């Protein structure tokens, strides 16, 4: 579901439930969700991370390749 479609659905549902005051909060949440979805560390079904094309990408290589965290097991 796109963020636009999600936001429309969520606002409509909130109004139906008598919670119109949710609208500004949902709009703020949509901005945060947009940031989350466009982050370059998201995995992609092609098998690659959605990497920044910049060769100086900030993503640690192991993380981008989806290797398990060898660290804390948490």
């Amino acid at each position, binding site marked *: 579901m796109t963020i636009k479609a999600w936001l429309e659905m*969520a606002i409509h549902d909130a109004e139906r439930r008598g919670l119109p005051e*949710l609208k500004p909060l*949902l709009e703020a949440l949509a901005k*945060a969700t947009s940031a*989350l*979805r466009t*982050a370059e560390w998201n995995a992609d079904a092609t098998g690659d991370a959605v990497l920044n094309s910049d060769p100086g990408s900030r993503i*640690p290589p192991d993380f981008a390749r989806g290797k398990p965290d060898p660290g*804390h097991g*948490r």
Partner: protein
Amino acid sequence: MAADPHTIADLSRALKARETTAEAVVERCLQRIAERNATLNAFIAVFGDEAREQAREADRDIAAGRHRGPLHGVPISLKDLFDVRGAPTTAASRVREDHVADADAPSVAALRDAGAIIIGKTNLHEFAFGTTNEDSAFGPARHPLDPDRSPGGSSGGSAASVADGMCFASLGTDTGGSIRIPSAVCGLVGLKPSFGELSTDGVVPLSATLDHIGPICRSVDDAAMLYDVLLGGGARPAGKPTDPRALRLGIPRAYFLSVLDPQVASAFDSACERLREAGATLVDVPIPHAGDVAAIYLHIVLTEAAAYHAKTLERRPEDYTPNVRIRLEMGRYVLGEDYARAMRGRELIRREVDAALEGRDGLFLPALAIPAPKLGVAMVRVGAVEEPVRNVMLRCTQAFNVSGHPAMSIPCGATTDGLPIGAQLVGGYGDTPGLLRVARAVEPIVAAGATAHAGYLGPGTSR
């Protein structure tokens, strides 16, 4: 005795040497609560009779040579999220008004086993879902130095109770900063250990993968004592403080120091300068995705909180305070795929905090971007930025709930009005004793800029 003990360490020595009695100390705390709780609204419940009885028992044991350790006979409060057998755990909500706990939370049992005296349960932001303590079924807790201001949150009543001399320490919870924020606001030391180190059983949850418990107290030594007891007496010895000349601290300047009240920035810069003068090495370190932390945190905390509250949001929505209800409702609209994205982002943040700590003893940054905010204020302007108070208050702390690294707030300065300012230290994952060693070295150096009464705003102090 020349002066009333200030810290648990002082009090414990005095009790063991029988220079004072637990009964006298408890009586002074109860007197302070009687005088001040109507103003500060720090306590939801006070266990006066039980505390007096426990104090007399502690005095008998100590007199008979059965001293149980540094918490024996020490009055401690609990944020009202912790179960105490036979008492309601209100979470500062009418949703919980019929609740009575049938057992002590393991953390509470550990304090009792160590001889601590549970003096009462403190006010909080309803269900710990806020940073100011304004939204509570019992009304807001208030700052000891200025009742028109927030004591921070969500463990606001806990911090107010310790800062005002109503008890010597409090047990709080920290999901995005709820121990460190009120500690910074009230001039106290607050410790959030590594994620998962201390049991959250018997504690009302906010967000199961972000929740931590820990102490709010008046010194790093006191925090270490409480941490050891909460861990079941099994903490690796904190040992001697790190030599300040050998300290290597990283400052994650980008993002964390980019939105700071000018007086907070000035106090933090002064603290850094004092550390350098003491011989410490401070270098800027990157946490490249720090700017993504707020979005990651939001999707995790909203989803997990909504899962816990869904049933009561349907059945008795009117029993929540309006602001908390509406934020909990927001969580019911987060999609599963976005929660999964947030959890993946979280792994990246963990690695980046690990990398920032590589070869260093800790990270050093402000604990809170602003001094104590006025109650009732929704937005705050910091420089050119105007943001919700909640967002600004979480800005320096929530990253380490996302990453799970241990972190603590220590006093480092004051505004021109005398409001406390806190610095934050972050340690290696799973190495809370190491963090405490560093904090013991840093505390006396940065405390030189703190208020004269930092850590204790109670009787005999004034602004």
